């Protein structure tokens, strides 16, 4: 890939290519797919819409493209409300999960296709297609048809077709999900470097939290049509807004244990947890304690559990334990740790510096900075 920044990017002024959802809803036959979504995507940002399937992330993306009409609220691109703007007039380019390449056209024709409609002269069309193809390393494949390409190459053609238009916004709908694991990691990096280089505002939809963590400037987590949290990847990881975000991010996700607060002290499964510093500023009563697998360890004394599964991943090992009350807790061990046997009785210690507290009823994060 060449490293030049394409001319023409500068035409997008600061703040011009932001995307804004203001109270956007979308109902299909009475079912809310997107529920009162308010979200601002900054100019030049790569924002990842993350969530399980059916959470409304793709619907939100399609409303930016104009392929779905919002039932309520407004979608704006730049300073323009685009609710009533035709898809073609929104100056957005979309990369589909299926790539949506035209099978009967050569790669050159595929990449030039958007320009043909804009009546760009043939000479310039060819030049820009060459440029886009070169950017994505497709230079010598331009006379082939999509059927003759591998999945990864097709994916890059889809990207080339998006960048050739020099749009205000890129919309990407799970573009990597049809690739095998190795290719996915490679293409992930390619998309990130391409986006950083072009500086084009990008909304990227995925259900893969690793993709979200590695690619996004910020991640917007959605569930059941509702926005759960928007934050930078590390913030999201370190300060999840609720138990859903906590358990959805990370692989494996955060452990959630029922606990009780008594006079500012914490008890999990009847075992007192020694906290450093001031007592908890949380009202007495039940609470959900969250702890990342890397912040839990197997020790001689602690919360009693038995080992139900040991997953060896090479560099690390996941020990899946079950507490007396049936709660599942995953402990991440380094390479040097002693691996327990299946069924072995163990004790789990939680690192008091990395505990998260959530309301036992609502699952919302409780303010207590630790």
């Amino acid at each position, binding site marked *: 890939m060449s490293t030049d920044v394409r001319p023409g990017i500068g035409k997008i002024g600061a703040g011009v290519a932001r995307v804004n959802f203001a109270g956007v809803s979308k109902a299909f036959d009475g079912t809310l797919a997107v529920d009162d979504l308010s979200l601002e995507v900054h100019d030049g940002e790569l924002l990842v819409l993350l969530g399980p399937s059916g959470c409304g992330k793709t619907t939100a993306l399609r409303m930016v493209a104009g392929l779905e009409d919002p039932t309520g609220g407004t979608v704006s691109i730049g300073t323009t409300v685009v609710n009533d703007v035709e898809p*073609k007039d929104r100056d957005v380019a979309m990369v589909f*999960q299926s790539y949506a390449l035209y*099978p009967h056209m050569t790669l050159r024709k595929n990449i030039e*296709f958007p320009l043909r409609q*804009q009546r760009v002269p043939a000479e310039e069309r060819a030049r820009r297609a060459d440029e886009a193809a070169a950017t994505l390393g497709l230079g010598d494949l331009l006379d082939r048809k999509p059927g003759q390409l591998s999945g990864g190459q097709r994916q890059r053609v889809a990207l080339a077709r998006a960048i050739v238009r020099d749009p205000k916004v890129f919309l990407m709908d799970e573009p990597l999900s049809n690739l095998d694991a190795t290719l996915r990691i490679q293409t992930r990096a390619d998309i990130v470097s391409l986006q950083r280089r072009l500086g084009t505002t990008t909304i990227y939809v995925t259900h893969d939290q690793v993709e979200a963590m590695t690619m996004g400037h910020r991640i917007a987590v959605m569930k059941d049509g509702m926005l759960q949290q928007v934050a930078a990847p590390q913030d999201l990881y370190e300060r999840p807004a609720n138990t859903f975000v906590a358990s959805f991010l990370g692989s494996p996700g955060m452990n959630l244990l029922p606990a009780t607060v008594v006079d500012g002290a914490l008890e999990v499964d009847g075992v007192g947890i020694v906290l450093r510093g001031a007592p908890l500023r949380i009202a007495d009563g039940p609470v959900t304690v969250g702890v990342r697998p890397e912040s839990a360890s197997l020790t001689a004394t602690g919360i009693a559990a038995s080992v139900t599964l040991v997953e060896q991943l090479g560099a690390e090992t996941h020990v899946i334990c079950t507490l007396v009350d049936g709660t599942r807790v995953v402990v991440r061990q380094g390479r040097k740790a002693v691996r327990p046997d299946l069924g072995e009785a163990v004790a789990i210690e939680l690192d008091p510096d990395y505990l998260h507290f959530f309301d036992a009823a609502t699952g919302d994060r409780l303010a207590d900075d630790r």
Partner: protein
Amino acid sequence: MPPTESATLDRPTGAGQPGSATPAPTPHRRRRRARLFLRYVLLSVGAVVILFPLYMAVVNSLLAPSQIAHQPPPFFPFNPQWGSYRKAWTEGDLGIYLRNSAIQTSVIVAGQLATSILAAYAFAFLDFPFKRTLFIVFLATLMIPFEVTIATNLATVSSLGWFNTFAGLTIPFLATGFGTFLLRQAFLQIPRDLREAAQLDGYGNMRFLWFVALPLVRPALAALGVFSFLGAWNQYLWPLLVTGNDNSVRTVQIGLKQLLNTQLDQINVSLAGTVIAVIPLLIILVVFQKQLVRSLTSGAVK
């Protein structure tokens, strides 16, 4: 879509396999060869059964009338009488009839393709009220034999003053439920993503139809074209009813019948006329054979 890269990587290169050129036939391979042989024999028998009448028509058209009655009939014209073809052409006015058939058939084929493409596109890609109901109505027309509507069609055509005109010959056949159904099914094979991608790039329905949808359903278009060509070219009853005794718009099938009536003792002449009338069909079949087969098997291959 299957990942093609693994397929190409897994394929053995063929190099570095000395001695694999002519291995001794294994029992398994021998059985496969026998099965293949049997298949060819069956196909050949089928081909002979189908082609024999056509062959005999050609042979008989080249015989003298006296030879035709001969028992057993000769299977090869050792003294071909080409004169019967000249006679059929001139006395049977086949030139005019063929021209009429060509006009009638081209108008019907073009009309059926145009209306089927547009209707099928609407049913496949657009949303409109009563879409399902309307489509069922389209399908229902397939269940009604043409003969049932012939009387009302005839009344309509003659009340419009289209008797003995090309309009009367062609207009009743310009739309077809079958063609709409066939092309709709083909259009439905096109992923919706393609339509949406084109939509984002500013392609409206007509331009998407032209640049993307039609090229992708070419085999189905060819199949429909050939079917409607066969149907139109071989029409007999309707052209007989709506054309008068003069040959200004009469089609070749009617012409052949007239030729048979006037040349009762010269069956070779009317067979020569038949052979001439079949030639355009054969040309169409040969030209579109590949597309036709592809369309009929496309579901199985993809």
